[in-house]
């Protein structure tokens, strides 16, 4: 499939449908100062200016994406309307290769799962190459009437929309094929990045984007995922097979930084830390985020059987000790130039046993923690080979491993609870632990057949379907269906951390942990015991983490490595030295002297704007921050009784009830009443801290303070005051 003849045949079938020539600007202080608009329906391509005001208020990355999307859609726009856009952006600090983790692309669109804006970040080279090719962001609008590839040639200054009839849809082998096709030669492959998805995106609402980088050691295109929210589904709805960017010449000063020595200093400091300390700390360079598997198990946080439990006796079979042996360890494995964290792991020479590629030997990117926990323990699967196979096919089909895992866990619980049976699933015995059934479900989802068509709608839609067609109890499904705003939960058990319940429930896009991960601070450290403490954490950390998404940065070098003396600082959870690094990085590149408080202000503007965007799309109120009870407490008798000592103690000490003589159901009801009231009190505290009304709406005063009181924003908010 990768022979020169095959590539040539596919290329020869391309027909240029639209073309746009431009002069490649020199990036200045981190910005190209223009964005690219491409309409795949009309063929219209244009350059749009980036104004000083746009940079001041929205910074870049997700901020630019939201601003462009706001102007593209209306409150009535649905995910599959032509006016919906996919906006992909880097950020002013993206491509600053002297510092680790500067290769992120931020993607936004109206999500098929949530019907509101989803944002997702992804590694690989695309974002920085796009910027150095002359574009701070790429807006894609319209729906093509045939399969197309968008090619941005930053060397020639040319953008084309090309009809591409012969290439396969699936990321594997498409990424490799297009990397070879659009590179001038073998050495040039490092200058090419491909965005693709797979056939799963055509038949489900959980499609992801795969963003590539070329790995010269393996001689292959590797991929990272913009996984959450069904962006791949929108991509294929527009009949896009791929977006390809090429740019030659990325180097340390490509951003034209104001003070490169300042960047070099902080870069050297953190690179030294990573090299010297990672082996003692998280071992990201050895096992990536998979180091968390056994740790989460030890703290009762690893999702098991649809988040019922937080640990499992077989966890050692899927622990980081196992992954360390399975991952190729012969060379550093980074998803972007210059990243010493190098946490992109891969399993090489893996022979597939199912599906359309059965028998083929492939390289599998990952699995990362979320995939191990989701496709492993949460499904009751403890065979690493099964997890790797699920990982490969999710990526290749363009399906988000997190949503796939959480929705399959939901199905498995429904199956074991008798809501589903073999007849309803078309013969699939979807019990926990049945890897063959999970794999078959995945293939069905990708191919749009059988029960896979129902599963691919996601947890929220399945709840409606099971009530309507199978007579299921809606209240029970609402309790166990792990979604918020329509997005499936990522893979942490939150029952014992009220702050993290809020960290999921109040997230702008739905139940993803990238805004806040507070479980240790809250549950283990007992550092934020009061509602006010929790509210402060649920203000600071979401704002801090949002900032990475404005700038094209990866969050991992912030706190998955720490200075040796971090524990001795006043606020170790914030990693103060690394915050200083980011202040230096932003100031050194853009030439704007900023403080750490300024960084938070940047995020507050965009974060609140996104909340208003949700309001505009019919969400964004208190009712939309509700969480399934499974994330707050035990839903079933066996769940309560598995941790009866803990819950009984809480009834005594926190609720003030003596559980002696009470039935399990009575105890569950009492605990539930308490915990649900706690969550409501948390919402009150957080909304107040963020400057929102009790209904979760940013006040006009907040909008004015943040200088986002544009007339159209105020108009949206006023309707809810």
């Amino acid at each position, binding site marked *: 499939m990768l022979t020169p003849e095959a590539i040539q045949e596919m290329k020869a079938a391309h027909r240029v449908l639209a073309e746009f020539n431009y002069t490649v600007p020199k990036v200045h202080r981190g910005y190209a100062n223009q964005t690219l608009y491409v309409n795949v329906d009309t063929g219209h391509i244009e350059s749009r200016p980036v104004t000083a005001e746009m940079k001041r208020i929205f910074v870049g990355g997700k901020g630019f994406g939201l601003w462009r999307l706001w102007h593209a859609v209306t409150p009535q726009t649905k995910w599959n309307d032509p006016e919906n856009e996919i906006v992909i952006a880097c950020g002013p600090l993206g491509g600053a290769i002297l510092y680790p983790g500067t290769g992120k692309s931020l993607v936004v669109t109206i999500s098929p799962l949530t019907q509101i804006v989803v944002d997702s970040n992804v590694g690989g080279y695309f974002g920085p190459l796009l910027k150095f090719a002359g574009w701070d962001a790429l807006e894609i609008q319209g729906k093509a009437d045939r399969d197309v590839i968008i090619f941005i040639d930053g060397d020639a200054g040319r953008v084309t929309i090309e009809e591409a009839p012969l290439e396969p849809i699936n990321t594997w082998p498409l990424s490799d094929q297009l990397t070879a096709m659009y590179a001038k030669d073998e050495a040039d492959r490092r200058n090419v990045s491909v965005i693709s998805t797979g056939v799963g995106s055509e038949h489900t609402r959980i499609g992801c984007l795969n963003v590539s980088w070329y790995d010269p050691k393996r001689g292959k295109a590797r991929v990272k995922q913009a996984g959450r929210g069904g962006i791949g589904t929108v991509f294929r709805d527009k009949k896009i097979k791929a977006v390809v960017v090429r740019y030659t010449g990325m180097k340390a000063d490509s951003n034209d930084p104001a003070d490169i020595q300042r960047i070099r200093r902080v870069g050297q400091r953190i690179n030294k830390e990573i090299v010297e300390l990672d082996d003692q700390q998280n071992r990201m360079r050895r096992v990536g985020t998979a180091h968390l598997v056994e740790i989460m198990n030890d703290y009762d946080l690893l999702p098991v059987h649809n988040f019922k439990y937080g640990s499992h006796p077989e966890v050692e079979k899927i622990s980081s000790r196992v992954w360390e042996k399975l991952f190729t360890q012969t060379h550093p494995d980074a998803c972007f130039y210059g990243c010493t964290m190098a946490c992109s792991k891969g399993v090489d020479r893996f022979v597939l046993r199912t599906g359309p590629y059965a028998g083929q030997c492939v390289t599998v990117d990952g699995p990362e923690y979320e995939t191990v926990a989701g496709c492993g323990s949460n499904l009751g699967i403890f065979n690493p080979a099964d997890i790797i196979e699920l990982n490969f096919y999710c990526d290749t089909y363009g399906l988000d491993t997190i949503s796939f895992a959480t929705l399959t866990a939901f199905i498995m619980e429904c199956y074991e609870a008798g809501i589903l049976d073999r007849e309803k699933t078309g013969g699939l015995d979807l019990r926990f632990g049945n890897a063959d059934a999970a794999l078959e479900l995945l293939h069905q989802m990708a191919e749009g057949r059988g029960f896979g068509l129902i599963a691919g709608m996601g947890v929220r839609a399945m709840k409606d379907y099971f009530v309507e067609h199978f007579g299921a109890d809606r209240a029970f499904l609402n309790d166990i269906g792990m979604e918020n705003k329509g997005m499936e939960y990522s893979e942490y058990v939150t029952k014992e951390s009220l702050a993290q319940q809020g960290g999921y429930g109040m997230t702008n896009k739905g139940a993803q942990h990238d805004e806040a991960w*507070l479980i*240790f601070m809250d549950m283990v450290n*007992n550092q934020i015991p009061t509602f006010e403490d929790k509210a402060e954490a649920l203000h600071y950390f979401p704002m801090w983490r949002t900032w990475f998404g404005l700038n094209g940065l990866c969050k991992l070098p912030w706190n998955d490595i720490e200075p040796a003396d971090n524990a001795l600082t006043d606020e170790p959870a914030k990693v103060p030295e690394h915050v200083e690094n980011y202040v230096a990085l932003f100031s050194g590149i853009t030439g704007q002297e900023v403080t750490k408080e300024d960084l938070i202000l940047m995020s507050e503007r965009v974060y609140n704007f996104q909340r208003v965007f949700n309001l505009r799309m019919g969400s964004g109120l208190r009712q939309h921050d509700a969480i399934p009870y499974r994330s707050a407490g035990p839903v079933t008798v066996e769940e309560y009784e598995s941790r009866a000592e803990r819950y009984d103690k809480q009834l005594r000490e926190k609720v003030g009830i003596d559980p002696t003589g009470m039935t399990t159901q009575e105890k569950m009801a009492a605990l539930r009443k308490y915990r649900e009231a706690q969550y409501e009190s948390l919402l009150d505290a957080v909304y107040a801290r963020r400057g929102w009304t009790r209904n979760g709406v940013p006040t006009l005063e907040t909008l004015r303070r943040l200088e986002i009181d544009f007339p159209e924003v105020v108009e949206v908010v006023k309707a809810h005051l």
Partner: protein
Amino acid sequence: MIRVNGQYEVEWRPGMTVQDVLDALKFSFRMIAVKVNGRPVLRRDFATTEVPDGADVQAIHMISGG
């Protein structure tokens, strides 16, 4: 008895070290900052630093992952 993070209790025994206390609670995470009665203990000293009976221990887990 040793009190940890103001919420956990560990039965004290003679010669008990910081590492023993962490093990008793299954605190397996590597990035933990420990103070015993307000005094910081470096990670390299966890296995050799004894914890007195009645001590107030802080075992602050840094945020990671996610």
